[in-house]
């Protein structure tokens, strides 16, 4: 399997000639557009029986593309993605921007979209802690709460603007990340999970009882919505000839910040910092032996992840207008954790996809309040049997050197052929 992936990757990064590159871009763009349309259709179906049929069809097609006669198509599309990532991302961003326009008659769906984007921000944050650095954090709701309370209280009591509050909320959340990371990083793996779990429960209790900070179980109410200049986010969004429901304001806000979050976490992964986190996850002792300050890096991973958790919480508070202890319970932590694990820990697109699915699917099954958690559990178990690494595993997201760079590194004019000779008559090749 790894070998096969490697060959596929090699094929994907071979230097492309002009026409082939255009074809690839077209394929990747079409594939993304098709996925988006399929997704929109799923959202547009209102009757539950039809939706179940739709889900079954989607899963069947996914399975066919994976193992069935259509596997060739999937491989071709995968190769196209490898070489035309910017096109794919561009089409996706356009589709996301078009979403509120498409569903302007249905404010509820736009609200769900905004909520999805908020969870994408949080899942991307946890993806840094869990996916990159391999640190199990089951107290992620703490950062959500810290960000939400900070910007909410600042806005309600001191009239601080949302735009300042969101940054302070993120910073306050990363302090909460630091507070748990500093002592908790003496333990590893599941024990770390347990400590952070306890931290989450403890902070929730504190929020219920420290009335002077949080108003206790009453929570903070009447949180003012953000505004840009004279434009208030509770008023309809007017874009030229279009008048979109006010939820679109929050949708575009959360979408923009989610895209920035994904971009930042992509840049982090490609940096030497990301490499150090990955090394810690792989083998902490070996990472320390390469000069990585493991403890410092782990605390940094916690705080960075927490920052995005806080940003997400802050947007949430100003969108809903209310924040209380029930908004960031243990279940909330588990939800974000499942989003990352289900989507694919370490994979940015995977974590984002996990977040979107876990917001939208429960919303679709609202009719089954009682059965929701049960269905959710069954789905999760099935998925972990079928794809234990998540929907989009880490391996597929690994950075690879393009062929040009590889050639430049191996002794000027040398290609693989010359290297092979060198190792057969030279002394150093094993």
């Amino acid at each position, binding site marked *: 399997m790894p070998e096969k992936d490697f060959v596929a990757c*090699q094929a994907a990064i071979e230097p492309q000639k002009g026409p082939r590159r255009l074809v690839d871009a077209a394929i990747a763009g079409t594939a993304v557009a098709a996925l988006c349309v399929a997704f929109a259709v799923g959202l547009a179906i209102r009757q539950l029986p039809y939706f179940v049929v739709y889900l079954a069809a989607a899963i069947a097609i996914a399975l066919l593309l994976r193992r069935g006669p259509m596997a060739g198509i999937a491989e071709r599309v995968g190769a196209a993605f490898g070489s035309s990532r910017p096109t794919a991302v561009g089409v996706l961003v356009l589709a996301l921007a078009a979403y509120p326009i498409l569903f302007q008659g249905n404010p509820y769906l736009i609200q769900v979209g905004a909520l999805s984007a908020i969870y994408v921000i949080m899942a991307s944050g946890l993806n840094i802690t869990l996916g990159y650095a391999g640190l199990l954090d089951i107290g992620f709701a703490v950062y959500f709460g810290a960000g939400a309370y900070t910007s909410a209280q600042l806005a309600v009591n001191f009239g601080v603007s949302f735009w300042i509050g969101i940054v302070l909320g993120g910073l306050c959340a990363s302090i909460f990340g630091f507070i748990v990371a500093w002592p908790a990083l003496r333990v590893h793996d599941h024990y770390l999970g347990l400590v952070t779990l306890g931290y989450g429960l403890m902070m929730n209790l504190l929020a219920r009882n420290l009335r002077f900070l949080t108003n206790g179980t009453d929570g903070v109410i009447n949180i003012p919505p953000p505004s840009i200049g004279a434009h208030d986010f509770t008023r309809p969004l007017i874009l030229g000839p279009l008048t979109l429901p006010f939820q679109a304001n929050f949708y575009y806000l959360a979408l923009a910040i989610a895209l920035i979050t994904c971009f930042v976490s992509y840049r982090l992964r490609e940096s030497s910092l990301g490499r150090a986190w*990955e090394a810690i996850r792989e083998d902490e002792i*070996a990472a320390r032996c390469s000069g990585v300050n493991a403890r410092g890096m782990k605390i940094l991973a916690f705080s960075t992840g927490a920052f995005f958790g806080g940003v997400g919480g802050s947007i949430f508070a100003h969108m809903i207008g209310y924040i209380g202890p029930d908004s960031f319970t243990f279940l909330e932590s588990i939800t974000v954790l499942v989003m990352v694990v289900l989507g694919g820990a370490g994979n940015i697109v995977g974590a984002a996809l996990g977040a979107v699915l876990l917001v939208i699917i429960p919303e679709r099954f609202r009719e089954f309040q009682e059965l929701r958690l049960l269905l959710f559990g069954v789905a999760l178990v099935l998925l972990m049997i079928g794809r234990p690494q998540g929907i989009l595993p880490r391996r597929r997201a690994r950075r690879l050197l393009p062929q040009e760079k*590889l050639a430049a590194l191996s002794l000027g004019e040398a290609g693989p052929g010359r290297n*092979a000779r060198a190792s057969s008559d030279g002394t*150093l*090749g094993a």
Partner: protein
Amino acid sequence: MAELLRLEGIVTYYGPIRILKGIELRVDEGEVVALLGGNAAGKSTTMKTILGLITPAEGRVIFAGEDVTRAQPAARIALGLAPVPEARRLFPSMSVYDNLMMGAYVRRRKAGEEIRQDLKRVIALFPRVGERLNQNAGTLSGGEQQMVAVGRALMARPRLILMDEPSMGLAPILVDRIYEIVRQIKSLGTSMLIVEQNAVMALSVADRAYVLQNGSLVIHGAGRELLESEGIRKAYLGGAG
């Protein structure tokens, strides 16, 4: 020659058990020193003490003129210490390229061009590694992994390479290759401290050698001398070599 590394009276405990009982050792600039001994002699503990993974109860570790006894591994590595750990300890699901770049981690703020030149140099030394830059390190053969581990250490432009059992788990022909590489690194003027059970191989390149037994250094001499001394061979190095 200038002194690079010195251990002064190192005593180390694991719980109540005294592992190292007063080690005195030095490595000079440009020198290759072997540290030999059987199982449980204290070789790995000595290595960990030098790296800073263990803090000794008594004694001092001096590297590049600085007392690093209480310094974190990262600080020592920044001073020019580069380990090739026991059993290689690559990052298995990272690419070979990323593994090599981890070696240059302490130099990450330096110019990319300088690091790229070093990468080219490592690839020139190990063409086989250069062919597999995009492959996951865990999918390489044992010999290739050892080369990546050595390459990773070289990427740090170290003053002293610490090799922990480079021959462990490798076929004899690969052990020969690895020692050829060790000779090559020696000819470039980099100092090395090689911890080995395979005494004959290590002594064939070492300028000097120490023999460790039960946590104490029992013999110290020039590499050739030890190799040729029949009595020492029988007593400490395993007669069969």
